[in-house]
C-alpha cells in the first residue's frame, strides 16, 4: 500500500528510526575496532566459531607438546652425556687392563693400576645414578633416591618399566634408559666387574680374561647410546614440526577470529560520516513548519 500522506509524526518517526539504525551500526563497529575480535558470540558466524574452538584446542595441545619436548630433550641429553662419559671410562679401564696384564709389571705398579680401576668403578656408579630434575634417569618409574645402591651396586629401580613423554598427536616416546641392560646389576654389574679386575690385579690373577667382558659391557653401553641418539633425533624433528604447526595454527586462528584493524577503522570513519549526515538532514527537515511562515 502506498503511503500517500506524510505528517509531522511520520517524518519524526522515520528520522528517529534512521538515526537509531545508524547509531546502532556505529556502536557495533566501535566495539569491533576496540576488541579486535570478530567472533564475539557463536551466532556471528557459527561455522567459524566451531573452527576457532578446534584451532584453539590444537594450539593448547601444541603448547603442551612443546613443554613435553623440552622435558624429553633434557632427559635424553642427560642420558647421552652419562653414557658418553661411561664409555670413556670403560676405554680407560680397557687400556689399564692391557697394561696390567703385561707380566713385566711389578707389585707396586699393579697396585697403582688397581687403585685407579677402583676409582673408576666408584665414578661409574655415580654416573649410573645420574639424575635430571631430581629423578634417576636409569631407574624407570621408581621414586627411589638412587638407581643403584652405592654399597652393593644392586639395581634399586623398577625393572621393566619405561618413562614416556607425549611429544605429538598420538605419539609418545620413551625418554629413559634401561639401567640393568646398560650397567648390569649386583654381581654381574659393570661396577662389580671393575672391582673384580682390581682384586685380580692385586692378587696376580688372570686379568686379561676380563677384556672380553669389558668389550661386552662396552657393546651394551654403545647400544643404549645409539638408541638414545636415535630418540633424540626423533625429538628434534618433533620440535621442528611442532614449531611450524604452531605458526600455522596461529595464522588460522587469526584469519578466523581477528579483525583487520585498518578495515575496521575505515568502516568506523565512514559510518561516523553517515551518522552525522543523518543528524544534519534531520535537523534541517524537522525544523521547517507552516507556523514559521504565518504572520
Amino acid at each position, binding site marked *: 500500500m502506498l503511503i500517500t500522506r506524510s505528517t509531522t509524526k511520520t517524518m519524526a*518517526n522515520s528520522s528517529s528510526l534512521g538515526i537509531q539504525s545508524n547509531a546502532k551500526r556505529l556502536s557495533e563497529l566501535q566495539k569491533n575496532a576496540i576488541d579486535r575480535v570478530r567472533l564475539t558470540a557463536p551466532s556471528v558466524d557459527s561455522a567459524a566459531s566451531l573452527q576457532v574452538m578446534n584451532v584453539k584446542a590444537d594450539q593448547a595441545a601444541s603448547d603442551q607438546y612443546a613443554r613435553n619436548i623440552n622435558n624429553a630433550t633434557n632427559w635424553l641429553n642427560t642420558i647421552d652425556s652419562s653414557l658418553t662419559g661411561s664409555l670413556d671410562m670403560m676405554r680407560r679401564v680397557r687400556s689399564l687392563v692391557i697394561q696390567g696384564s703385561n707380566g713385566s709389571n711389578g707389585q707396586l705398579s699393579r697396585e697403582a693400576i688397581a687403585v685407579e680401576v677402583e676409582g673408576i668403578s666408584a665414578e661409574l656408579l655415580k654416573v649410573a645414578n645420574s639424575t635430571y630434575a631430581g629423578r634417576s634417569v636409569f631407574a624407570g618409574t621408581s621414586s627411589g633416591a638412587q638407581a643403584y645402591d652405592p654399597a652393593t651396586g644392586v639395581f634399586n629401580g623398577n625393572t621393566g618399566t619405561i618413562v*614416556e613423554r*607425549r611429544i605429538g598427536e598420538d605419539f609418545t616416546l620413551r625418554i629413559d634408559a634401561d639401567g640393568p641392560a646398560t650397567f648390569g646389576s649386583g654381581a654381574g654389574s659393570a661396577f662389580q666387574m671393575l672391582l673384580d679386575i682390581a682384586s685380580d690385579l692385586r692378587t696376580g690373577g688372570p686379568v686379561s680374561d676380563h677384556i672380553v667382558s669389558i668389550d661386552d659391557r662396552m657393546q651394551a653401553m654403545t647400544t643404549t647410546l645409539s638408541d638414545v641418539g636415535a630418540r633424540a633425533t626423533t625429538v628434534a624433528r618433533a620440535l621442528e614440526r611442532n614449531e611450524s604447526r604452531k605458526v600455522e595454527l596461529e595464522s588460522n586462528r587469526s584469519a578466523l577470529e581477528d579483525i583487520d584493524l585498518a578495515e575496521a577503522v575505515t568502516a568506523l570513519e565512514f559510518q561516523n560520516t553517515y551518522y552525522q549526515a543523518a543528524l544534519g538532514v534531520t535537523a534541517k527537515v524537522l525544523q521547517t513548519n507552516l507556523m514559521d511562515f504565518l504572520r
Partner: protein
Amino acid sequence: MSTLASLQLARTGIDTARAGLIVTGQNITNADVAGYTRQRLETSSILPAASMTAFSNPSGIGQGSNVSGYARLGDDFLDSQARKAGAHATSTRIVADAFSSVEEITGEPTSVGVSALMQSMWAGWQDVTNAPGTTAPVSVMLEKSNTVADKLNTGLTELETQWEYSQAQLKQGLEETNALAKQLAELNQAIRTTKNAGGSVNEMLDQRSLLASAIGSRVGGAMYELADGTTEYKVGGIALVSGTSARAMTLTGGASPGDTPKVEWSHHPGVSVGTAEGAVAGHLQVLASSGPIATAHAQYKGFITELATTLNALHNGALTSTGAPAGDFFQVNLDGRLSVIPKNVSEVAIASPGAGDLDTSVADKISQLGKGSLDGSWNSFIGSVGAKSKAALTSFDLAVATQQGAEARQLSGASVDLDEENINLLGYQRSYQAAANVFNAMSEALELIVNLGR
C-alpha cells in the same frame, strides 16, 4: 424566509465555523497523544423549509449549514496490520534475546569459554605426567579442575535463573492480558451505550484500539467488529473478549527447566491458547522443551555426567602418590552440579597399579580424554546454538522491518499533520469572520426594517 429566520441562518454559519475550530483544536492538542486518530468535521446544508400551509411562502433556499458529525479518519485494516506486526516483533525479540543469553552463558568462543577452560585442565594433567612425585603440577591441575567445575555449575545456575525470569515474565504477561480483557469489555459496554444515545465515540474508539494493541503485543490475536458497535477479540480462534464479556487465561507448569509451561483457557480447562505472536508466545517458545534454555540445560547436565563418568573410569583404582588406590575424581551432586573430590595432592591418582610409583600412564590417558567424544559433543552443541541464535536474530530483524512499515502506513492515515491543521484553522477562522459578517449584515437589515416606521 422570515427576517428572524435569516438571523438564524447566519447563526448556523457561526456555529459550524466554531465547531470546525474546535475539531481542529482537538486535533492539534492531541497530535502527540499515542493512538490518537485525527478527526474531521462533517457538515451538510439544511434543506429549505417544507411547505406548511397553503398560505406560507417558502423562499426555496436552504436554511444554513449544520454539523452532521465528527468523522474519525482511521482504517481498521491498517490498525490490525500494525498490531499484528508489533506482536510478531515482540515474540521474535524475546526468542532472540533468550538465545543471546545462552550464548553469553557458555562464553564461547572466547578464552573464558568452557572449551578453553577444558583445554587448560587437560594440559594440567599433561604437566602432571612430566613431573610425577612433585606437588606443584598436581595443585595446579586441581585448581584448573575446580575452575572447570565452577564454570559448568555457574552455567547451570544462570540457565535456571534465565528460565525463572522468562517464567515470571510469562505469568505477568498473562495477568496483564486478563486485566486488559476486562477493560476492553467495559469499554465496549461504554461505547455501545454512548452510541445508542447518539454521542460521539471517536476518543473511545482510539482507546479501544490502544487496548487491542496492548493485548496483541502480549498474546497476539485480532479484533473484529460486531454489528452493535462492540468488538470481539479472538486469540487462536477462541474469543478472549466477546462484546461486553471477557474471559481469562491461566498458566500451569514451568517451575524448572524441563517442565514445559502451558497456557490454557479458564473456561475450557485443558484447551491450550493458540497464541502464536506476542510476548506470551515468545516466552512459551523460549520455555518449550526444544527451546534454547531447556536444551542448553540438558546439554550442560549431560556433559557434566559424561565428563565425570569418563574421568572417574580412569581415575578409579589407579594409584595416588602414596601408593594407595584412588576413588572417583569428580562427583555429580543431586542437583546436577559437579564437584572435585580430591582436596589435596596426595588424593590424586596418577599411576597405573604395578607400573612403578612414578608411573604416569593414568594421568596421560586422562589428559587425552578431551580429544574424544567430550569435546566433540560440546562443540556440536555450540554450533547448533550459534546457528539457531543467528536464525532468531534474522527473524527479529525482519519482523522489526515489517513492523516499521506497518506502523508508518497506519500513521500516514491516522496521524495529525500540523501543517494541514494550521491551514484548516485559518480556513475556519475566515469562515467564522465571514459568518459573523453575514450576521452583521442581516442584523443591520433588520434594524432598518424596524426603524422604517419611525
